[in-house]
């Protein structure tokens, strides 16, 4: 059916002025019926019907005015940082969410892989999950049955096909999940790069599989923030930033521009005017900026385990402040305190005259927080004597999986949050006596897990 000549001039994917608007905060809370009644009454007073006009809540465009065409057999990379609209674009093209504006036209069967293990159920066996997940991804039963051996082979889990997947190691689980997805053969394949999973060898196999999918004349849309993966596979790339398409060019040009935007735009400062402060208010925190840095001190786009983190705070005094201690605290998403740092630990104190403005920066080296969401709190005061100003949760800190690290380390699921620097020693054979001063075979610092 993917005949070359039939529709050579009709683009397989045509995106016209596509837009998606979200209401801020709409996702976070589920409405209760009472709220809906109140809103409904209020709204009915104005106009009837029209959902979405319910509150004067803040809205933003996750994607705006994006237009592009993809021809048959093209492999196009979509690149952008987190929050640039990549995922939204993907979700619209895969028909998971509906656009707010514009239109998309697709020719042929669409398969989208946004996450590994879609539809996997821990209580079902490997075999059962292959069929279930395959059906959810849009494969016919006969098609799955025909490819079953190939799928299991590729995942290297033959011996465990009839074991419940909850007993699988995370690596086995991921491999099987990816393998099902990789054997989907749609006309248009929409892939998120995070799909390349597992250890380095298996990742290579994954990328190889995607490359071969592309070479078989299928149209592929490949979303990534891993430049290394995109450049060799794609014939063209699009760069998204803040919901808009800023560049459409060959992958190398786009990659260069992307790299430039990363270094040029450090994280914005959080304005603390409207935050909830406590303390006597002799001084107030006015802003906070979280700047992830590489080991060499250059700014990086995202915070990853092991990055440096610079926390810049600004304070304004309204009354004299004498020898105060300024501190920061990092909490996990449920508010459990993980670590803190303050000026007193370094023997330094802050004194301010009224209207003085001070900047207190903390540089945390090698922050080994696991990927996830954390909260940053601020405090200025004097021991047990007084709280001058404090904000329990001033900003959130997102720690992302390190795209480079991922290639080499395995991620184990679980709730623990911190990692520590450690050394692994692998020696050839167990010896009865530890050799004093013996060189460890592998002595590179590795993040735990």
């Amino acid at each position, binding site marked *: 059916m993917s005949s070359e000549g039939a529709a050579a001039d009709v683009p397989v994917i045509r995106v016209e002025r596509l837009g998606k608007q979200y209401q801020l905060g709409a996702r976070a809370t589920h*409405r209760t019926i009472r709220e*809906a009644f109140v809103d409904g009454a209020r709204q009915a007073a104005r106009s009837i019907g029209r959902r979405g006009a319910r509150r004067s809540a803040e809205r933003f465009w996750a994607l705006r005015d994006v237009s592009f065409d993809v021809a048959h057999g093209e492999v196009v990379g979509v690149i952008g940082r987190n929050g640039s609209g990549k995922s939204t674009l993907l979700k619209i*093209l895969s028909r998971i969410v*509906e*656009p707010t504006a514009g239109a998309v*036209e697709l020719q042929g069967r669409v398969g989208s892989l946004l996450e590994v293990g879609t539809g996997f159920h821990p209580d079902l066996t490997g075999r059962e999950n292959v069929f*279930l997940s395959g*059906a959810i991804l849009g494969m016919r039963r006969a098609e799955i049955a025909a490819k079953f051996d190939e799928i299991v082979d590729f995942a290297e889990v033959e011996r465990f096909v009839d074991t419940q997947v909850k007993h699988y190691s995370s690596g086995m689980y991921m491999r099987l999940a990816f393998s099902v997805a990789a054997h989907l*053969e749609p006309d248009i394949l929409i892939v998120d790069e995070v799909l390349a999973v597992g250890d380095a060898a298996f990742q290579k196999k994954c990328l190889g599989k995607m490359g071969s999918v592309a070479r078989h004349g299928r149209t592929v849309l490949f979303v990534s923030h891993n430049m290394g993966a995109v450049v060799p596979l794609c014939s063209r790339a699009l760069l998204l930033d803040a919901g808009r398409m800023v560049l459409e060019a060959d992958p190398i040009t786009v990659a260069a521009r992307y790299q430039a935007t990363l270094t040029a735009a450090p994280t914005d400062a959080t304005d603390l005017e409207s935050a909830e402060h406590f303390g006597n208010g002799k001084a107030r925190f006015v802003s906070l900026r979280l700047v992830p840095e590489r080991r060499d001190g250059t700014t990086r786009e995202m915070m990853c385990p092991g990055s440096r983190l610079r926390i810049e705070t600004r304070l304004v005094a309204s009354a004299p402040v004498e020898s105060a201690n300024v501190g920061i605290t990092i909490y996990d998403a449920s508010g459990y305190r993980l670590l803190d740092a303050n000026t007193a630990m370094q023997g330094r104190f802050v004194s301010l005259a009224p209207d003085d403005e001070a900047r207190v920066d903390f540089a945390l080296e090698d922050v080994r927080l696991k990927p996830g969401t954390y909260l940053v709190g601020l405090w200025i005061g004097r021991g047990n004597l007084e709280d001058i100003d404090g904000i329990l949760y001033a900003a959130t800190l997102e720690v992302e999986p390190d795209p480079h690290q991922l290639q080499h380390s395995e991620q184990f699921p679980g709730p623990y949050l911190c990692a520590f620097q450690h050394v692994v020693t692998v020696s050839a054979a167990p010896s009865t006596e530890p050799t004093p001063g013996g060189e460890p075979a592998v002595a590179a610092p590795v993040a735990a897990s």
Partner: protein
Amino acid sequence: MVTQSIIRPATLRIEPTRGWVPLRLGEVVAYRELLFFLVWRDLKVRYRQTVLGVAWAVLQPLLTMLVFTLFFGRLARVPSDGVPYSLFAYTALVPWTFFATGLTMSSNSLVGSANLITKVYFPRLTLPLATVLAGLVDFALAFPLLFGLMWYHGVTPTAQVVWLPLFIALAFITALGVGLWLSALNVEFRDVRHVVPFLTQLWMFATPIAYPSSLLPERWRVVYALNPMVGVVEGFRWALLGTDTRPGPMVLVSAAAALALLVGGAFFFRRMERTFADVV
């Protein structure tokens, strides 16, 4: 290349929609294999790691029947249209259990599959539909015991039993209809999960399970039958036990109410569907 396409319109156009949208039932049919796998998954998962396994499908109505027989039949001496009370109650409890389970499971079907809804496209109608269909399998397991009970009490089914599938269909339509409303509402309003246990309990009292509808004054029965489960339960008793509850206006009212629930529910579901992935 083995490409057997499921989603293959000549051109698929994705655009913002608003208001009421077509049901696109053809798509649900195209995804029937997925529907089959979802039903199969529900059943597999429900009974895996249980000691009694599928016996639960029979035990639920059976135990309720024993309790009812003891309290309502023996102690309260509730009349039972001339049929042994235990049989009277079990005949009602089999379709009722199907309905109540279907309603409870389907109202949670979308929220419970949030990870699917946000990751992959398929007609969302398949989710509540699959849970109600899975309930049908439980129903088929609990049903044979009914014949056992009839044999035990020496009741032979009449020729009216041929009408039974109609009443099963009515129970199915009602369960799915309510399930569509509740599952769609549950996505945005998590109040639903608090409402459901309460709703099923009240609904049970509003259905002639522990008592016969002949207790009600004649003129109220048609209003009473607006509850489609009234038609289902009385229909079951009439078809199997030959009670004097011949399907008349009551069943027609019940059927009309059930269809209204289903059609309304399906359109409401489709209308709400566009925000499922954003909200769930």
